[in-house]
């Protein structure tokens, strides 16, 4: 027993000449929620599919629950893919029976929100309800490790909060959780973060470790839309947090010149950078290389 639930050792995956995952090493331990971050196309889903044995590695090694990612070890895993992995032409009850049968576990009780829908075909349910069914199916056999690929994409704020209750609850009961997300507020609910860019693991650890040496400047002005347009036209790496304008790795003097030239008065203030800003800097580095 290593105590490590998921492990990748120097894993690489190529598709033709394209390297989707490039020499990545990572692990997930019991009781922790690990957030896997990165732009669309960074290699997150390819890495997950290799960790679960759904896609062979080109080189390197993966371990699921201390062994190879085969059927025997996958029985102790709960996985909710981006596409949810349900059968649209089966009812809610039939999907859960099928999944319970495959894992050799008892069928889960339906929560109140699904109680009246046991005999509804899954494809006729709204996406939020389908997601609940996928979670139920993935959790019914009390998995030791849970892998969730964008579990809250397209879900409303209230349902998102409820799904995170479930995720944290699983970790408190000792499961290890690997979760991908594009919501930075969700990233902050993880115990540890991994950031991928262009197939490589470029940073890991706390939020501060991910942000690294990235800096940011907040631009305070009367007309945010006008200032955003002017800075954007000048090619500055502009981000928006609500209506607050922020610029990553910027020189405040140069920004002030751009704004003055556009006739905009603004107060510039150095602020702590965010994970989004680190991602923006990475995207621009990738674009210019």
């Amino acid at each position, binding site marked *: 027993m290593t105590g490590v639930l998921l492990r990748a050792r120097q894993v690489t995956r190529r598709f033709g000449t394209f390297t989707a995952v490039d020499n990545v090493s990572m692990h997930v331990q019991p009781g922790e929620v690990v957030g896997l971050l*990165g*732009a*669309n*196309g*960074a290699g997150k889903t390819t890495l997950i599919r290799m960790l679960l044995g759904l896609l062979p590695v080109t080189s390197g090694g993966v371990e699921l629950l201390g062994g190879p990612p085969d059927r025997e070890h996958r029985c102790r895993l709960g996985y909710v893919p*981006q596409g949810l992995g349900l059968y649209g032409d089966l009812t809610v009850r039939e999907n859960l029976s099928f999944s319970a049968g495959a894992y050799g576990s008892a069928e889960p009780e339906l929560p109140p929100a699904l109680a009246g829908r046991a005999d509804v075909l899954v494809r006729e349910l*709204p*996406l*939020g*309800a389908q997601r609940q069914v996928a979670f139920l199916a993935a959790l019914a056999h009390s998995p030791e490790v849970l892998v969730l690929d*964008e579990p809250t*994409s*397209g*879900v*409303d*704020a*209230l*349902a998102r*909060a*409820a799904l*995170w*209750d479930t995720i*944290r609850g699983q970790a408190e009961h000792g499961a290890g959780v690997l979760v991908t997300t*594009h*919501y*930075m*507020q969700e990233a*902050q*609910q993880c115990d540890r973060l991994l950031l991928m860019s262009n197939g490589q693991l470029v940073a890991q650890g706390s939020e501060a470790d991910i942000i690294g040496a990235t800096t940011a400047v907040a631009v305070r002005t009367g007309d945010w*839309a006008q200032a*955003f*347009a002017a800075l*954007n036209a000048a090619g500055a790496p*502009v*981000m*928006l*947090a*609500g*209506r607050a304008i922020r610029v990553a790795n910027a020189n405040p003097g140069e920004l002030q010149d751009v704004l003055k030239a556009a006739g905009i008065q603004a107060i510039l203030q150095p602020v702590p950078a965010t994970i*989004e800003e680190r*991602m*923006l800097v990475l*995207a621009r580095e990738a*674009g210019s290389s």
Partner: protein
Amino acid sequence: MTYSVRSATVRFGHVLALDDVTVEVPAGSVVAVVGGDGAGKSTLLRALVGEVALDSGTVEAPPKQRLGYLPASSGSWAALTVTQNIDFVAGIYGLAGDELTARRRELLDRASLTPAADRLAAQLSGGMRRKLGFVMAIVHRPELLILDEPSTGIDPVSRIDLWRLASEAAASGAAVLMSTTYLDEAERAAHLVVLDDGKILVQGSYDQVRAGFAGVVTQTAEPVRAEWAWRRGRVQREYWPSAGPPPGATTVAPDLEDIVIALSLARRNAVLS
């Protein structure tokens, strides 16, 4: 020019998808519709596009050739390249020759898709595919631009690109109506509409919505009333609609996410009681 749906009601069988909804979309601004899956966002958008007929109420929208629409699903053809996708749609609107070449070049540049011009749509990342769909919806310079969840599942960097494209369309005079599940995007819109279960929970500018929010939100490790509480990061928040919170509770200034959740809970708890 202001486009609108007024007193719109739509039923699908027994389901009331829209219940007396009035939304205006003025030229030159971005209006954001927020709400979860099944709230009625797509139905509202499709009513304006003319894909859903109202049971009652009125729709004011331009004819199809002056309307741009990015549906929630894909919006491009997987087996065509980026350029072929744009040219195909442009051809339907009668754009051709030098005019098409110039327009395509401009839009590819603004969407940072120029390096991917000859790539098949099937080989684009999710963010690039949404940007292509956006470009295709806007190629004919529509007066009303309707975007159904352009940013769902899209990374934060591409989301900013999409926002920039939408705000540029509004700045050049289009009326833009977009749905989103990201509340920070809705904060930026000139006007936001919160839908829940086919009804409007609240609408107005972000400042109006904030100013009109009644009650107090507290932050706590142990909520007093579970049915009024939700997780926010590692702590819980709790809504006190009328009666004040217990003495000593930590109150927080609610942001749009808190306000939307609090109003949704208030409606659900009222329905249940």
